[in-house]
């Protein structure tokens, strides 16, 4: 019997036509993936439900009023000013660090990513430490640029590394001067990276709470939280959430339209030549000013303010019992959230690599869509659902972990998928032919070999969770006080010195995770 089954497996693997191998594993995985997708789409469903439940008339009154108009103007201006500045900054920095002989290019490249280790609301805290009067749109744009430009720098610099320099040579031979080559050949090929990064920044601008609350700049997210804190879970908050979700959809639609359908793959065989490095010559020191100024604003200001408060506060601000507890709670919740997020991503990651069908692509799209919903909407949805349907789950670890899964699943998915794709499917088949059951074969081969990718996924999801404030505040179980929450509570009491150790710890723990993000982007780009 045993011999028979292994013989038939051998026969099957030697047939070139791909039969439905491991059907049981496939259908189980699909079921789990669908269940996770349904959970992830809960916030969207909630917004739809809330709109219907509110009724058109009330909804109309709540949406078309002065307050919402003001918030809309703020949001649109914030996006319209921040994204182009980030894009210009990211392209200039990426060109300098990847394609010129700028002294210390590697260092500057790392320093251009490092601001991601500083949570957005800590940037804000640092700036008002220096300029206490900072507020409004100009402040919001300035801080958003330094906090978020790495999201564009990372993909754009990776795209620079992947460009085929032969195309630039070709354009020169067709009579184009260097700047024209950049405009007509290089820039169009950066379009995918620019669109993707700009979308990510746009979604962050819509979702961020702490950064704008601290400088008293009103956006939909801050308004929803204000509503939530004053009237708990009213209809007005629901309708603001609806408008916010619509804004997200506008961004998603814009990006999809601008990106176009086609990938600009390298045509033809062979490996691309190493890119040409432009000699800056006497412009060298002038060019150094850009990364220097950017690093001064994005890293220098947080370092300066933090350092000042830490020195001013002295030993008195290090209340070790409270800090220790917050650190412990943060690490536990990051670990649980990170592992849960990665585990939830395994089925869809496996399906999208091993069984790429229209259904798996659709499911994947659902996850990305769900994660682009702002944390405040996710939290609002989960609060409403737990209170109305499953009260015992309200303000439990399970609920907050679900929120993290919804928000950060794509981070885990990207690293998992990359590492699963590197494990040859023949190993799974070989394990099956040696008598392992389908699930067992998967566990013994692909899962084991994809472990580094899974670890990276856990780390990246944890980075998001550690610096998450909005949903954590709304969903955390009573008595929970993570680093971010403690930091926020102390700055709310204008105890800037007392908040400094928490900010420092968040930055310190985010550093290695940001490094991981940086090296992963290098690896994806093949170097």
């Amino acid at each position: 019997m045993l011999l028979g089954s292994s013989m038939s497996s051998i026969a099957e693997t030697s047939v070139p036509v791909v039969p439905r191998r491991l059907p049981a594993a496939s259908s189980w995985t699909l079921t789990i993936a669908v269940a996770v997708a349904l959970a992830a789409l809960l916030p969207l469903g909630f917004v739809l439900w809330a709109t219907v439940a509110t009724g058109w008339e009330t909804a109309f009154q709540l949406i078309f009023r002065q307050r919402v108009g003001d918030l809309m103007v703020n949001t649109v201006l914030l996006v319209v000013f921040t994204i182009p500045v980030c894009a210009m900054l990211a392209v200039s920095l990426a060109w300098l660090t990847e394609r010129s002989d700028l002294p210390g290019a590697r260092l500057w490249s790392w320093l251009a990513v490092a601001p991601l280790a500083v949570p957005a609301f800590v940037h804000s805290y640092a700036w008002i430490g220096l300029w206490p009067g900072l507020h409004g749109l100009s402040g919001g744009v300035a801080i958003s640029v330094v906090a978020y430009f790495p999201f564009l720098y990372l993909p754009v610099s990776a795209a620079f590394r992947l460009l085929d320099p032969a195309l630039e040579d070709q354009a020169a031979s067709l009579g184009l001067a260097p700047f024209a080559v950049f405009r007509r050949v290089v820039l169009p090929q950066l379009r995918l990276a620019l669109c993707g990064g700009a979308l990510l920044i746009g979604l962050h601008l819509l979702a961020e709470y702490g950064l704008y609350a601290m400088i008293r700049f009103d956006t939909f997210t801050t308004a929803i939280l204000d509503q939530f804190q004053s009237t708990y879970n009213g209809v007005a908050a629901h309708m603001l959430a609806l408008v916010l979700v619509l804004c997200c959809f506008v961004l998603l639609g814009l990006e999809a339209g601008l990106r176009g359908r086609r990938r600009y793959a390298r045509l033809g065989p062979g490996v691309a030549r190493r890119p040409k490095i432009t000699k800056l010559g006497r412009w060298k020191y002038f060019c150094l000013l850009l990364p220097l100024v950017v690093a001064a604003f994005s890293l220098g200001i947080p370092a300066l303010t933090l350092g000042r408060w830490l020195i001013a506060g002295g030993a008195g601000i290090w209340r070790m019992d409270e800090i220790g507890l917050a650190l412990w709670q943060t690490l536990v919740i990051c670990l649980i959230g990170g592992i849960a997020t990665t585990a939830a991503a395994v089925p869809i990651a496996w399906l999208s690599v091993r069984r790429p069908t229209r259904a798996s692509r659709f499911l994947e799209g659902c996850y990305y869509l769900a994660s682009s919903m702002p944390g405040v909407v996710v939290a609002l949805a989960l609060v409403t659902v737990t209170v109305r349907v499953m009260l015992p789950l309200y303000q439990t670890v399970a609920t907050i972990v679900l929120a993290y899964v919804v928000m950060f699943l794509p981070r885990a998915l990207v690293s998992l998928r990359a590492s699963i794709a590197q494990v040859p499917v023949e190993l799974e088949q070989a394990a099956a032919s040696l008598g392992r059951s389908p699930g067992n074969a998967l566990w013994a081969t692909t899962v084991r070999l994809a472990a580094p990718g899974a670890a990276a996924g856990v780390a990246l999801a944890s980075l998001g969770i550690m610096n998450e404030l909005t949903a954590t505040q709304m969903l955390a179980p009573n008595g929970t006080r993570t680093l971010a929450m403690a930091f926020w509570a102390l700055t709310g009491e204008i105890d800037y010195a007392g908040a400094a150790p928490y900010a420092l710890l968040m930055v310190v723990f985010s550093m290695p995770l940001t490094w991981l993000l940086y090296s992963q982007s290098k690896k994806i780009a093949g170097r």
Partner: protein
Amino acid sequence: MTLLQLTSLRKHYGAVAALDGVGLSVAAGSRTAIVGPSGCGKTTLLRLVAGFDQPDAGSIVFGGRVLVDGAFQVPAHKRGIGIVSQDGCLFPHLTVAQNIGFGMEAERAVKEASAAELMDMVGLDRAMLSRKPDQLSGGQQQRVALARALARKPRLMLLDEPFSALDTGLRAATRKAVTDVLTAAGITTLLVTHDQAEALAFADQVAVMRAGRFAQVGSPREVYSRPVDPATAAFLGEAIVLPAAVAGGRAESPLGVLPVDDAAYRGSAEIMLRPEQISVTGGGGNGVSGTIAEISFCGPTSDVRIALGGTDISIRLDIPSREALAAGDQVTIGVSGKAHLFRQ
């Protein structure tokens, strides 16, 4: 008239000399092929002419204008030299029409009209103008790349292994189409290839390159029949190299007494014959006798090793397949034409 003059070009990558003093003159309207094994520096040479890289030393003069001399360098976009590279290098974000019009400075209508004309010229359907490059086959991409380079009416066209990415059948057809177009337009052409048959078929002048130097420059017939050394001979095709005693234009060799192409040389030397000079017949006849030591059938030809009678030397060559021949058979070997003498 010389259109392109290269003098003592040198280029190092770290400690490796990619070009070690290369000189070449290319006549206007001619076709020159640079042929050599991969890594011999031929692509480096082409990139220097195109202006993509700068030589460490040497000069390039093109149509009476100095392009490179020492530190002086005319940038690539001001040279007016066209290039078609190995994979066509089409811009993936532009349509075929936009690719062809890329280097033209004209109004849109003029560009579109010339793009259509160029499509006819390179033998492609005008309906393809609106396609993206990834919707074309490899051969079509190469033709579009040629049209794009032709659009600027260059006086010199550089071809960097433009046919090597194509299948065998397509390669010959594309090569003929490209040659015809360039000849019709009267454009001087410099081709770089590792395929010696392609070089010999394409060019008026062949430069054989080895380890950063030109081993020999001459007409295709000259480099093929009178190579400078055994290595060049072997690179350009099958060669049978034998020891011989030479005097008065005659060589005493294991294949008998043969006329050689050098009347003055006297002494022992190596001589070379090409396989097509040798005929193998079964049984008796005029010539040297030998025994078939090995034979393997390859379809229209058979690969044989023949041990020459009275010596321990054997020769290896392809002969037309015949039913009768088998290992151990006696054959007679005849030689036509002169043997080539390598002077030592």
